[in-house]
């Protein structure tokens, strides 16, 4: 089975700076990691491959340094990786990103399955996975928590939705986005790290792909960032300090009064 796992390198979300001019993220000086939710997609792909054989190729679009994310995926056990990196790709929104990734996946030849993380922790949109399915005209199943059956012609899936689980059957090829429950991601092995170190990661730009140049990067993106604000989170609420048993009673009274005053009880 040929499985593609698109991944994204994201900044550690606790430490992010924005360019106030363009509204895009400043990536320099911030630790970059593999989007934590993509690790579940990688794990799901590796388990499938280990069960039925095949190849897991991971693909990412980003700056040249995103090679590190692909190497990490290879260290976990992915067979190979492709990096889409070119200044013309820069500033892409989810539309242009999904388009570019879909064109690159087409260039990889016959594919059985594409597994994406639910969303990236920086953009938080969850739109690129469904977008890839739309561009490739493949069946799409989102929020997958389990792959319960693997047959030659398809997969049986559990889809986690509000209030329960939908059981779906999909023919292949298909696109899945997976949630955390699918499997817990393995750690890279020493052997994997060595393999990753020597792995050559091809870098593809617009010239390597069959692309409509008007559909990539910022200029190919239908959306524009108008402005960026810092959310005001501080509420400066009242504080109660519990130092002894009597304070416990006071705190509990305050709690109940708080609920009553706001008609919450």
């Amino acid at each position, binding site marked *: 089975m040929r499985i593609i796992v698109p991944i994204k390198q994201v900044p550690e*979300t606790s430490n992010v700076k924005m360019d106030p001019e363009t509204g895009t993220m400043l990536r320099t000086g911030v630790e970059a990691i593999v989007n934590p939710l993509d690790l579940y997609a990688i794990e799901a792909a590796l388990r499938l491959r280990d069960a039925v054989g095949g190849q897991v190729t991971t693909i990412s679009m980003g700056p040249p340094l995103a090679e590190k994310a692909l190497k990490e995926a290879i260290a976990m056990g992915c067979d190979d990786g492709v990096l889409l990196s070119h200044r013309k790709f820069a500033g892409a929104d989810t539309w242009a990103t999904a388009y570019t990734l879909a064109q690159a996946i087409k260039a990889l030849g016959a594919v059985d399955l594409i597994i994406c993380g639910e969303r990236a922790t920086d953009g938080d949109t969850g739109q690129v996975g*469904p977008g890839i399915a*739309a561009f490739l005209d493949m069946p799409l199943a989102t*929020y997958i928590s389990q792959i319960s059956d693997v047959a030659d012609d398809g997969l049986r899936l559990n889809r986690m939705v*509000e209030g329960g689980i939908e059981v779906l*059957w999909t023919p292949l090829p298909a696109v899945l986005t997976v949630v955390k429950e699918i499997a817990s991601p393995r750690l890279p092995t020493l052997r994997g790290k060595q393999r990753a170190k020597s792995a050559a990661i091809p870098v593809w730009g617009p010239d390597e792909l069959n692309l409509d140049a008007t559909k990539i990067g910022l200029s190919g993106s239908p959306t524009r960032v108008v*402005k960026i604000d810092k959310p005001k989170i501080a*509420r400066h609420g009242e504080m109660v300090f519990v130092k002894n048993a009597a304070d416990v009673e006071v705190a509990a009274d305050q709690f*109940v009064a708080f*609920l009553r005053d706001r008609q919450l009880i």
Partner: protein
Amino acid sequence: MDWTDIWTLAEAKQGKLHTVSFELLTRGRTLADARGCRLCSVVLGDAIPETELRELLARGADRVYVVDHPALARFLVEPHAKALRYLIETYKPEVLIAAATTTGRTVMPYISMQVHTGLTADCTGLEIDPETGNLLQTRPAIGGNIMATIKTPTARPQMATVRPKSTPPAPRDEARLNASLGEIVRVDVPESLLTARMRYERFIPDESQEVVIEDAEVIVAGGRGMKRGENFKLLADLAAMLGGSVGATRAAVDRGWQSYPRQIGLSGKTIAPNLYIACGISGAIQHLAGMQTAEYIVAINTDPDAPIFQVADLGIVGDVFEVLPAVLEKLKEI
């Protein structure tokens, strides 16, 4: 034909509309009034009763587009996306908003790619730019560290999903029905579009999700400070008294104290309940991103410097195992 009208995508399950459909009408009404255009709602489903459709009219829709077909009985991306795309290309709405549910967050990106337009996920604010008439879409990003305002300047329709529970449902106005305001338009979508390669086999209700935490008005959540899984009983008791549901941080879920559907934060659910009670939660930015839009927040934690206190309306610096039992006692007396 020009792109005109504000559309909302209603959600129906087994012939019944979900409340979020009416929340979208609240959003849509403001936008339609600002644009001086019609507010329309789209219903895709099977055997949707006329009374449900009229409910949308009563709650402010000027027009309801209905595609009623057995292929739309259950949510499968392909027939839903193709039917909606057909409607978009036939009637050309200027704006289409949907709920940021598992349905909306699946079908909307799929369609936006195919009709080549922009989509903004999980908006908390939507307004019309008075100068250009564009839809300004505000959403949290980068783990709630920033609020980004986004527009789709030229492509149409302008598409957005909005968080459930972020606005009250549009009120019912019987007078609208009596005055025969609004119309129901049944649309026949070509059969060839209503096919799916994927098959829906069955639904397994998840009892641990009986109260879907995204829908709960009150959430009592626990973190690492709860020390062990059994201690969540205390939170469940309080939740039961307040008619709420139990939530957890990633730390608590990773330790197996609670199930993943209850996880709140960046890698779990984003919720906006009326009341959020954080117990033994320090308030990592990833957790705050998932709950800081709650109307009221109460936090109990032993560490006075815990970041959770910065977002709390009432902060109790103390031992949750002393404070909560005392609170429960007092609530029982009421």
